[in-house]
């Protein structure tokens, strides 16, 4: 009897108004606060890059190549004599743009597709077979293939990273819709003559938000990682553009000579992804009633 009352209380606590108040009222863990602070600093660094950077990040200076740390070049210079510190600072721009852009595009495309496949059986059968096919291609290979065929600019890069992530969003939304459409309040809406599109919009979509927000943070982290990986492999944005992946890719050869060429970009990249992931965990703990129950 006791267990039953607990479990039946769950749907109620999913109310969005309650969720929002929870998100803001919940006393966040120290790790979450640190993660948010780090991320905020990186965002500020990206926005104010032109003021923070000491040099033009793409300016070549063959005479000054491969210098160590100095007052002039805080982190030294790379093989083309470009100022490493300035390049690392500007690198934040690409990473954040790609992370946020991909997450946004994924929702834009994945949410409607998921809603439709969850509600319409025939569409579901066709589209999900297609999604299964897309899922079978490992993301990095698909991204590599797409980038290799088009000249890599920011847009194609984002599309290339987004395509493999879409099936996951579609599946997530679809499973939420499938679960929710069995709920009595959706059947009640059907009986009250509510048109299908209103049911989708009013009763089914809001239930997908909580897991969607969590998944979005993870996709954002994954996109930043994939972009860096592509650049590192030399198939990302042109090597002239300052990205953390590019910086490390170029530093690779001189790694034993000057580890700091990889170190700083790698550190910032790792911190950035870690912060996003930690915020994702925090969002999950706050939004997922199942986790909530478990943590007591």
């Amino acid at each position, binding site marked *: 009897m006791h267990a039953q009352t607990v479990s039946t209380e769950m749907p109620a606590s999913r109310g969005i108004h309650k969720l929002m108040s929870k998100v803001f009222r919940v006393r966040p863990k120290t*790790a979450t606060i640190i993660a948010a602070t780090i991320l905020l600093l990186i965002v500020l660094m990206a926005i104010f890059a032109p003021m923070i950077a000491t040099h033009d990040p793409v300016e070549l200076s063959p005479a000054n190549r491969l210098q160590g740390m100095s007052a002039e070049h805080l982190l030294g210079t790379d093989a083309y004599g470009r100022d490493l510190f300035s390049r690392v600072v500007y690198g934040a721009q690409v990473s954040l743009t790609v992370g946020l852009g991909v997450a946004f595009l994924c929702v834009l495309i994945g949410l409607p597709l998921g809603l439709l496949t969850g509600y319409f059986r025939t569409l579901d059968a066709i589209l999900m*077979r*297609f999604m*299964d*096919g*897309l899922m*079978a*291609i*490992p*993301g*990095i*290979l*698909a991204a*590599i*293939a*797409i*980038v*290799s*065929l*088009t000249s890599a600019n920011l847009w194609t890069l984002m599309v290339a990273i987004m395509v*493999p992530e879409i099936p996951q969003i579609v599946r997530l939304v679809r499973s939420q819709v499938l679960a929710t459409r069995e709920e009595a309040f959706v059947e009640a809406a059907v009986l009250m003559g509510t048109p299908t599109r209103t049911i989708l919009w009013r009763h089914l979509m809001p239930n997908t938000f909580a897991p969607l927000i969590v998944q979005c943070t993870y996709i954002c*982290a994954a996109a930043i*990682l*994939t972009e*860096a*990986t592509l650049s*590192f*492999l*030399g*198939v990302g944005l042109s090597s002239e553009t300052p990205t953390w992946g590019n910086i*490390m890719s170029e530093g*690779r050869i001189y*790694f*034993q000579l000057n*580890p700091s060429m*990889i170190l700083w970009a*790698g550190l910032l*990249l*790792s911190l950035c*992804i*870690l912060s996003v*992931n*930690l915020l994702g*965990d925090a969002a999950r703990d706050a939004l997922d009633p199942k986790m909530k129950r*478990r*943590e007591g």
Partner: protein
Amino acid sequence: MLGYFIRRLLAAIPVMLVVALSVFLLLRLSPGDPATIIAGEMADAEQVNNIRTALGLNEPLHTQFFIWIGNLLQGDFGTSLISQTSVMSMISQRLEPTISLALAAITLTVIVAVPLGVIAAWKQGKWIDNLVMSTSVVGFSVPVFVIGYILIQVFAIELKWLPVQGYRSIDEGIGEFISRLILPAMTLSSVYIALIARMTRASMLEVLGEDYIRTARAKGLGQRIVLFRHALRNAAVPILTVVGAGFALMVSGVVVTETVFNIPGLGRLIVDAVLSRDYPVIQALILLTAGLYVVINLLIDLSYAITDPRIRY
């Protein structure tokens, strides 16, 4: 069981068709003339024409597709545009390093990740749980190549315990083979360990809340029997699912690890192929990995039947 197996095999056909179609169309429908893109900006008209003929681009689209599929079914993956050798033989030459690396990493993962996840779930909220959880977040946040360089810096450059880079075939001596595999395997498995440990913990926690665990405790069973006999077997299905879904992660890890450690495997092959726009090689490798993905997930589906008697096909 056999019926289910056949049904699953049949269901894999449309998936593979979608994969083949996507790979095929990607080249054909990309903006601009594929031959020009492949040839690169420096190529002259004749080179472009040669590539167009080599790829059969002058035929109508559907004819091209059926010719291509027909060849694939006969095991003909085409010829490399760069080395002019058969793609199949290029792949088979590069197979050994990748397989050794992947197997080593998977073994390491299973040995480390599952016990960590079980312990974390058991000691939920205690320091060991916090340690496992925070290490695992770091584990899948730090890019594989960064982990690789850190390991090289510490174990190869500072401590000089292990060689920096390179690969030796097992034929050239088991000692060399293993010593050069340790760092890459650790690098590759880091993400995987983090993922599986987290999943094991989550899955165990879910199961530990079930009624039958309460029953087991009410019977007076010891903690160890409850954890391993009653809980872990029930938690296995979601863990296995993640192992399958993590395959994509593994592929990306292999590509990066082989680059960092200079291992001449399939991962290097695809990066080189992309850099030189050797499209038949790219196509073949994507198809092969997708096929492998389908097979692995089929095997995992079948293994559910072993862990869970409720699943009868």
